C-alpha cells in the first residue's frame, strides 16, 4: 500500500524522508467499513425472554414430591376375612391365573362390553435397582419366545444370512422375508437391497466374517448372540422373532428404580391354559434380565384387558425357576423333564 502511495505522490519526497512510517491516505475508507468494525466491537447482547411456564407446572419439584409412589406395597394391610368386603382396606387379592382370565371374560362378555376377543396384557412391575445402590438396570427391549401363537398385529420383516443353502431355505420356510449369502451382502453394498425394509437381521455364524463390512449399515441391529439374532438354529430364531412377544422395560422418569413392562400375552378367546403358558414364558424371559444382586426383580404382575380398567394380581413366583445351587444339582440328577415350572 505504501508503495502505491509513493507512486501516486512522487513529488512528496520531503515528507517521505522524514515520516516514512506514517500511513497517509486522502481517500475515504470503503463504504460501510466503519459501521462493520463498530459492529464487531459492540458485542451482541442477546435478550433472554422469560419463558412462560403454566401455573400448574411452576413448582415441579414439589409436584413430583407429592406424586404417589409407583412401588405399591400393601403388605401392611390386613387380609380380608368377610366374603363381602371393600377392596381398598385390604391386601390385593392374588388371583389364580385362570380365575383372573375368567373375570376379564365376564366384563368382556357380549352382555357387557361385548369384546370377547380383546387383548390380554401382562403388566409386570420391576425393581430396577442394579448391583450398586447408585446404579440402575438399563431399559431393555426383547422378544420372548412363546409356545402359543396369536395375532400381534406388528409388521416384523426378517432378513437371514447364511452360506449354506439348506439353512437359508429353512429360514424362508420358517417365515423370513429374504434369505441370502455372500451375493446378498454384495447387493446390499451396491444398494440393490435396502436394509430399511427389514425390522430384524439374523445370521448363521458361518457367514459372520463376510458380514462384518455391513456393520456400519446395520449398526445396533448387527446380529449378535446376546440379542439372539446370531445362532445356528435360524428356524427357531425366525419363529421367535415372528411370533414372540415383543416387549420393552422402561424405567420411570422420576422413580428410577421402578420399571414397567406392558405386553400382550394373547387374546381373551384363547384357552386359559395357553394364555398361562405364554405368560409364564414372558415372565421367565423378563427374569433373565435380573441383575446380580439380592432381592426380588419382578415386584408385581397384573393382568389387564382394555377397555376394562380392572387389574388382577397374579402370582409370578409360580413360573420362575429358583436357581439355588442345591436344587439345580437335584434337578440334574432327576433329568431335564422335571424342570418346567408349570
Amino acid at each position, binding site marked *: 500500500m505504501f508503495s502505491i502511495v509513493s507512486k501516486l505522490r512522487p513529488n512528496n519526497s520531503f515528507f517521505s524522508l522524514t515520516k516514512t512510517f506514517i500511513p497517509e491516505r486522502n481517500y475515504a475508507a470503503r463504504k460501510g467499513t466503519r459501521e462493520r468494525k463498530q459492529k464487531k466491537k459492540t458485542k451482541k447482547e442477546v435478550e433472554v425472554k422469560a419463558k412462560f411456564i403454566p401455573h400448574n407446572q411452576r413448582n415441579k419439584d414439589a409436584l413430583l414430591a407429592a406424586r404417589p409412589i409407583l412401588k405399591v406395597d400393601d403388605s401392611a394391610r390386613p387380609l*380380608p*376375612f*368377610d*366374603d*363381602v*368386603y*371393600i*377392596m*381398598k382396606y385390604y391386601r390385593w*387379592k392374588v388371583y389364580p391365573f385362570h380365575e383372573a382370565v375368567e*373375570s376379564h371374560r*365376564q*366384563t368382556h362378555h*357380549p*352382555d*357387557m*362390553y*361385548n*369384546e370377547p376377543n380383546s387383548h390380554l396384557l401382562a403388566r409386570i412391575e420391576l425393581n430396577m435397582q442394579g448391583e450398586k445402590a447408585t446404579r440402575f438396570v438399563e431399559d431393555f427391549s426383547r422378544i420372548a419366545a412363546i409356545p402359543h401363537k396369536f395375532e400381534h398385529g406388528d409388521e416384523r420383516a426378517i432378513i437371514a444370512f447364511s452360506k449354506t443353502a439348506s439353512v437359508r431355505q429353512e429360514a424362508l420356510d420358517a417365515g423370513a422375508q429374504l434369505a441370502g449369502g455372500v451375493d446378498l451382502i454384495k447387493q446390499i453394498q451396491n444398494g440393490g437391497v435396502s436394509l430399511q425394509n427389514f425390522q430384524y437381521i439374523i445370521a448363521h455364524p458361518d457367514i459372520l466374517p463376510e458380514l462384518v463390512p455391513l456393520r456400519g449399515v446395520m449398526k445396533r441391529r448387527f446380529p449378535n448372540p446376546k440379542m439372539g439374532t446370531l445362532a445356528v438354529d435360524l428356524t427357531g430364531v425366525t419363529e421367535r422373532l415372528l411370533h414372540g412377544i415383543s416387549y420393552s422395560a422402561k424405567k420411570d422418569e422420576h422413580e428410577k428404580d421402578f420399571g414397567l413392562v406392558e405386553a400382550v400375552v394373547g387374546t381373551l378367546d384363547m384357552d386359559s391354559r395357553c394364555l398361562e403358558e405364554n405368560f409364564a414364558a414372558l415372565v421367565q424371559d423378563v427374569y433373565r434380565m435380573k441383575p446380580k444382586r439380592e432381592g426380588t426383580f419382578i415386584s408385581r404382575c397384573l393382568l389387564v384387558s382394555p377397555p*376394562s*380398567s*380392572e387389574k388382577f394380581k397374579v402370582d409370578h413366583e409360580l413360573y420362575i425357576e429358583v436357581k439355588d445351587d442345591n436344587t439345580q444339582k437335584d434337578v440334574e440328577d432327576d433329568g431335564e423333564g422335571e424342570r418346567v415350572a408349570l
Partner: protein
Amino acid sequence: MWKSLIRTITPLSKTTNCLLSAETSIQQQLRTTFILKRRINPPLSKKGGPPKKLRTRNYLYELVKDTNCDKQANIDLILTSYVDGLGNVGDRVSVKSYQAYDQLLLPGLAVYATPENLEKYKDVEVKDMKVYSSSTALGVMQVLSKITLSVVMNKDSPWTIQPWHISASFRKCCYMVPEYAISIPEKPIKGPNLDIEGKEFYITVTINKTEQFKVRCRIHHWSTNIRERLPYEEGFWKVPGELLFPEDEEIAKAQSQNK
C-alpha cells in the same frame, strides 16, 4: 396461656345466658403446659454454699414438647344404650376422644367409666342383643347400602340380568361381592331397552351368609362403538333415579331415611 384464656373468656362476656351451657366454660381445662429445656445449664454451686446467681443466658429455653399438639388418648366409656358397631348397654368401650365427646357423651349414649358409674352399670339387663357375623360386617353394610351401583350392560346385544353381572359390576367399583351372596329380583330384567336406561332396582346382598341388606343398582347402556355411546352423566349417583319396579318404593324410602 393468655391466648387460650382469652379464647375461653370472650364467649362468656359476649353471651349473657351462659346458664344454658351444660358446664360453665371457665371450668374447661386449659392446656398450657409446655415442656422446656434450658439451653445453657446454670453453674454448679459449691457444696453447702448458696446457689449461684443465674445469668441472662440461663433463662434461654428450648421447646421440648407442646402438650397442646399431643395426640389425645382414647377415652374409656360405659354405654348407656345400644350403639351400632360398638356394643350394648353396660359395655365398657375405649373410643377416640373426639368420637367419644361428639357421638356418645353429648347425645347421652354413654358415660365416663368412673368407679361410681362402673358400679352403677355392673348388672344391667341386656335386651335385644345384636350380634354381627364379624366386626366389619356392619361397616360394609352401611357403605354398600348408600351407594348406587352402576350396572353397565350392552346396548346392542340381548341380555338378561344375572348375579354374575352384578358381581362383576361390584368388582369394577372395587367391592368384592361373590356371586352366591347376590340375589336379584324375581322379575327378569331384559335388554337392551332404552326405556329402562337409568332406572333403578334393588338387589339383596348377604354378608357371611347371615346379614342381608339391599343395594340400589342402576342400569346403564354401553355401546362398544364409541359413536353410539350414551353421554356420561356427571355424578349420576347423586341424583335419585326412577324405580324400575314400583313395588320397591318402600325399600327406597327406608334407605333414604337411613342416609
